[in-house]
């Protein structure tokens, strides 16, 4: 048994090394268009991982997570355009502002579960969207904020590629540490049985709120990076369909696995990119994909693979 675990662990490190190596070397040979696509994937993958802290670890279906993504983007844009601050300060401050929004929204919604939680997070998310969409003097309304200045060096796709890649690696390492920590284990315990955690002497909702805020923080990093690479930000980043899309990525990849949300983000982003070239009806294909996924693979791709692996391992 321990040998099997040991073997799996070695295999996991090998895979990690191969994929990291692939992405580190990619700018040396890949065409620029691929780099842009990869940057988008890095950002969306980080966004999906941050959601999985709520969706997978805490087992709470958030349908308003895109709001923290949008807030991160707007915070960056407003700090850089209106306050004329350097881009790196914007990038540093944006996640904290997203985290602050998560404190407020989380305070009202975190004590609920299931569909009630979904509806409340979505409701608050839509409110943030509506504010961004209408407050012309501050957020640019439905025109968004465009032409955000960024340092000249970041305009080279290779440089930005490495920036996004490093942000993803560092963020996912931190998320991994937090998930494996005493706190992370507490969140899983809350998902498994709130009552038992209460009767271990803990205030359940305080822990859930902190988890919610950390997730909002990382969504804010992703949002700021997106605003940076596009040099623009729009209210629709935070629309509820954007939240639904990232939920889909997590479910598709598998919420039970650490890499699941990243896998989902890669697949959805690539599919959207390549299918939209051939048809106007991308939504139809996405809709059918969701239906097939939930009908036949509710554990997501990683859940499915894990199940297969367990079947093949004797004695496991």
């Amino acid at each position: 048994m321990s040998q099997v675990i040991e073997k799996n662990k070695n295999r996991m490190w090998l895979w990690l090394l191969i994929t990291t190596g692939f992405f580190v070397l990619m700018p040396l040979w890949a065409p620029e268009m691929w780099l842009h696509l990869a940057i988008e994937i890095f950002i969306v993958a980080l966004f999906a991982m941050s959601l999985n802290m709520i969706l997978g670890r805490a087992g709470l279906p958030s349908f308003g997570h895109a709001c923290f993504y949008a807030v991160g983007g707007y915070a960056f844009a407003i700090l850089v355009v209106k306050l004329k601050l350097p881009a790196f300060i914007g990038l540093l401050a944006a996640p904290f502002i997203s985290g602050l929004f998560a404190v407020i929204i989380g305070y009202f919604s975190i004590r609920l579960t299931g569909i009630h939680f979904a509806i409340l997070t979505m409701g608050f998310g839509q409110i943030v969207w509506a504010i961004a969409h209408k407050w012309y003097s501050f957020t640019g309304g439905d025109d968004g904020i465009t032409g955000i200045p960024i340092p000249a060096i970041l305009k080279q796709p290779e440089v930005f590629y490495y920036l996004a890649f490093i942000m993803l690696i560092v963020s996912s390492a931190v998320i991994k540490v937090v998930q494996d920590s005493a706190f992370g284990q507490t969140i899983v315990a809350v998902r498994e049985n709130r009552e038992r955690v209460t009767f271990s002497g803990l205030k359940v909702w305080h822990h859930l709120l902190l988890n919610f805020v950390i997730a909002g923080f990382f969504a804010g990093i992703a949002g700021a990076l997106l605003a940076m690479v596009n040099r623009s930000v729009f209210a629709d980043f935070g629309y509820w369909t954007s939240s639904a899309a990232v939920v889909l990525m997590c479910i598709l990849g598998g919420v039970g696995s650490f890499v699941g949300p990243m896998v989902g983000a890669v697949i959805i982003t690539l599919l959207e990119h390549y299918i939209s070239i051939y048809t106007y009806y991308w939504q139809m294909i996405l809709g059918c994909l969701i239906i097939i996924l939930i009908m036949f693979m509710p554990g997501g791709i990683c859940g499915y693979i894990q199940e297969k692996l367990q079947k093949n391992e004797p004695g496991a």
Partner: protein
Amino acid sequence: MTGSEFLMQFMSGLTTAMIYFLIAAGLTLILGVLKIMNFAQGGIYMLGAYMSYTFIKLFGGTNYGFWLTLAIAPILVTAFFCVVEVFLIRRFYEKPAIYILLMTYGVLLVTYDLARMSWGWIIKTAPMPPMFQRPFEIFGLFFPLYNVFLIFMGFFIFFFIWFIINRTSWGKIMRAAADDREMTAALGINVPWVFTAVFGLGAWIAAIGGALVAPMAGLSADMGVEAGIIAFIVVVIAGLGSLPGALLASFICGEVQAFGILVLPELAIAFMYLVMVIVLIVRPWGLFGKPVIIK
């Protein structure tokens, strides 16, 4: 503001309110009984509207054609969504909420593109039936007769659902199944079919809402997404699953919007969000809902 201006604005708000109510009433029923959020509800409303457009055209825009359309089109849409419920939604009622949330979102995306494929990208308008092409007079003021009809239909649908739920044996079974699934099943009632019926009724209300709006609004696939969010806001303000709450919430949203536009015209539909913010902060469980706070 003079009295007649006030009355005009009030009636316009009431018309909007009734449209909101027709959009949200079906979702209220589904939420209240099945305890699920149906993102596809806006898509049902949109298909109801498009289907009516097709039939009204087919019948040459005549009066009897309009009434026939109201009878046929929503039923066809309902039948389609009953099939969806049986094959795609039914098996997930007992599973974590995320599956139905995502599933109905998938169904919404499919209906969205189905509509674009079938009716094209250009905004369509159904002809107004001849009998409604005249104004209606009260207190020396003239309103479009169709708006008055729509307001009437809103109240009619409200009492219709209220009657079914509270005054028929069907309603009793529905309420019982909502309260305690297992007990109701133990009493020999086929709960899955009760749920299909509730889903169907909810779909029918949304579809007839779409059919009623067809002659007075431009039809596009986007109206489904918009309607979905309107229905969502109304049920949040109302308190999940409360029918009187939905009527009151629609009324508040419609009127706040009608009068708010006079002061801040650029906000338009955002007034609904304003109402939602206030309600969510003061009473997060909605006007008529029960608190569901867990320690």
